[in-house]
């Protein structure tokens, strides 16, 4: 019987089949951060239990950490929450990368960086963007706090089998069009609930040509299409990335990992195709990630009233030329070294436009150090960007990085929800190149013309 990658990952982890498509799945790896874990550790302690396999977990603080003045965290609740994670890890024997550890960073950046994320594994985290790790051919998905407690206590989770959706993206992306534009185009096409109940496998020549970092961007925003799981079959690109990482196996089990690919005659429940050559730089105009258009486009003539009122836009209004107050380059979607290289590559001899506040937040300490070794920090700083310490920052606005009401932000993050970057904040999602160009121009511009 021909099997998809998802089928193979699922079947390899069934501890017990309960029928009706429901099974207990063994969980190989869990990433832990400070926001979704406190109540899980408390619940575990109330039961008088210790983690079943502490060495399968890795913890880091990322959501509430400040991006400057890290020696003294000003917000007492954030300080306590981060200290609580450290204490919970110390008490249970779970490795914790502290705020002063050079490896600290966003949970979805550090997992791959450390070789913690591996093909053929099940990986969970109390964070919806855990879909990111599917880029390695791992069955990775976001869970809630009760499920974290369950994994700590038992190493298994009760899950319902998803339907499979293959998204085939063939063709070559235009220069200055990235994985971020690709996933925004897909979400625009199928809608924010378009893949509810599905595990998406990304396939096609455009996906095969993508770097690991681009694949992570693609899988990261799978949740914004309504699916919990995004997958890319592991290949030489994957193996090259993983070879020599601190937690990677030596040697890499390449034969086992190559066998994970969907069989040629595997059947998917649904198929969607995208033509890479037709994808333009994308910009969201509304408050849901499917409210998106090519930068050359306009707010649809039939757009809902509520997102327009919130965003301060009108039907038919062009996206190009829209003035921005703030720019954020970072997040688990676009805070990796390639994202920062792409952003820095747009700067040229320009400077951040007057009146615009632009920040660059590396996804991890190692990304920051790499960027500094390459001189990217100096290019950003010379152009008038701020160069910050790693964390989720202005994506989730849990630390002191947040927008004032009504401020308009070009953001490389993943959510343009109401209030996401602060009360009344207006977020336009776009790629690192597009956000950087917006910072320099002071308004939304088509990066293809900006660099051309």
């Amino acid at each position, binding site marked *: 019987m021909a099997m998809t990658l998802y089928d193979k990952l699922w079947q390899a982890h069934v*501890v*017990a089949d*309960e029928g*009706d*498509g429901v099974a*207990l799945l*063994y969980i*190989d790896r869990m990433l832990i951060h400070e*926001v*979704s874990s406190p*109540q899980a550790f408390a619940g575990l302690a109330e*039961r008088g239990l210790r983690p079943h*396999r502490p*060495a*399968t977990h890795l913890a880091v603080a990322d*959501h*509430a950490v400040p991006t400057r003045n890290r020696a003294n965290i000003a*917000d007492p*609740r*954030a300080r*306590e*929450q981060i200290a609580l994670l450290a204490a919970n890890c110390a008490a249970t024997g779970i490795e914790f990368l502290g705020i002063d550890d050079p490896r600290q960073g966003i949970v979805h950046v550090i997992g791959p960086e450390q070789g913690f994320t*591996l093909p053929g*594994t099940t990986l969970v985290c*109390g*964070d*919806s963007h*855990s879909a990111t790790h599917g880029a390695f051919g791992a069955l990775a998905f*976001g*869970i*809630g*706090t*009760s*499920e974290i407690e369950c994994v700590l*206590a*038992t*190493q*298994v989770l*009760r899950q*319902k089998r998803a339907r499979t959706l293959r998204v085939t993206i063939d063709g070559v992306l235009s220069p200055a069009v990235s994985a971020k534009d690709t996933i925004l185009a897909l979400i625009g096409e199928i809608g*924010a*609930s378009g893949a*509810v*109940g599905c595990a998406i496998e990304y396939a096609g020549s455009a996906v095969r040509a993508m770097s690991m970092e681009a694949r992570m961007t693609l899988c990261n925003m799978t949740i914004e299409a*309504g*699916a*919990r799981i995004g997958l890319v079959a592991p290949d030489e690109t994957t193996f090259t990335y993983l070879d020599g990482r*601190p*937690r*990677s196996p030596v040697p890499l089990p390449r034969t086992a990992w190559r066998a994970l690919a969907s069989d040629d005659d595997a059947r998917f429940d649904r198929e969607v195709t995208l033509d890479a050559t037709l994808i333009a730089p994308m910009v969201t105009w509304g408050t*849901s990630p499917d409210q998106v258009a090519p930068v050359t486009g306009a707010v649809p003539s039939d757009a809902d009233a*509520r997102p327009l009122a919130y965003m301060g836009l009108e039907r038919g209004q062009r996206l190009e030329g829209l003035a921005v107050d703030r720019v954020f380059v970072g997040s688990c979607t676009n805070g990796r070294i390639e994202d920062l290289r792409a952003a820095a590559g747009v700067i040229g001899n320009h400077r951040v436009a007057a009146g615009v506040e632009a920040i660059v937040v590396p996804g991890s300490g190692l990304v920051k150090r790499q960027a500094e070794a390459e001189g990217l920090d100096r290019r950003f700083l010379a152009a008038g960007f701020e160069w910050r310490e790693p964390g989720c920052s202005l994506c*989730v*606005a*849990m630390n002191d990085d947040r927008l004032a009401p009504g401020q308009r932000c070009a953001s490389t993050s993943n*959510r343009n*929800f*109401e*209030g996401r970057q602060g*009360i009344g904040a207006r977020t336009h999602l776009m790629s690192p190149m597009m956000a950087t160009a917006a910072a320099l121009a002071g308004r939304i511009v088509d990066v293809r013309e900006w660099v051309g």
Partner: protein
Amino acid sequence: MEPFTSLRALAAPLPGANIDTDIIVPARFLTITSKQGLGRHAFAEWRLEGNFVLDEPQYEGAQILVAGANFGCGSSREHAAWALADLGIRAIVAPSFGEIFRANALRNGLLPITLGDSEWRRVLAAAKAGDCVAIDLASQQIGLHDETSIAFALSDQERVALLNGWDEIDGIRVRYGTATAEFEARQRAAAPWLWEKDLPHE
């Protein structure tokens, strides 16, 4: 977990699509490290704007939400389920749910009911009219004011767990401890790298 058996209550209409968990509990409240008391932060921004449905006298005491498609999409924060439960909400009726939210709801005694478009519209109409709605989980029926009823489906596992208020972790430990150990022995032999390399090598 508090069992869910049956309920007859007011239903508040909240029909917009894609109401995300950032709306249900804004991120700035997520440094709270307890499950209790989150109801006061639920829908904080919308409540500030005024005219929020759960603040209208007509819907005081509503225990059912009739929500739009993809309710609870976005962030995995279980705080959203805790906050709704803290407000006294016991059931949510929607055309579809964010999947992580749905799983979180079920683990906190909240019943997520998925209905097709025409059935959903009938329940929404009842909510808008201020009628009480009856939900019986054992028979998987929603009773409306006009004595008609609508069937809904939950998996057997989900229904039985909710009806009994079962603790999932205890259940798994009792029933599947041996199966887990057997799985681990098999994996240790088949994929030793998942066991040998748990800690970083120097």
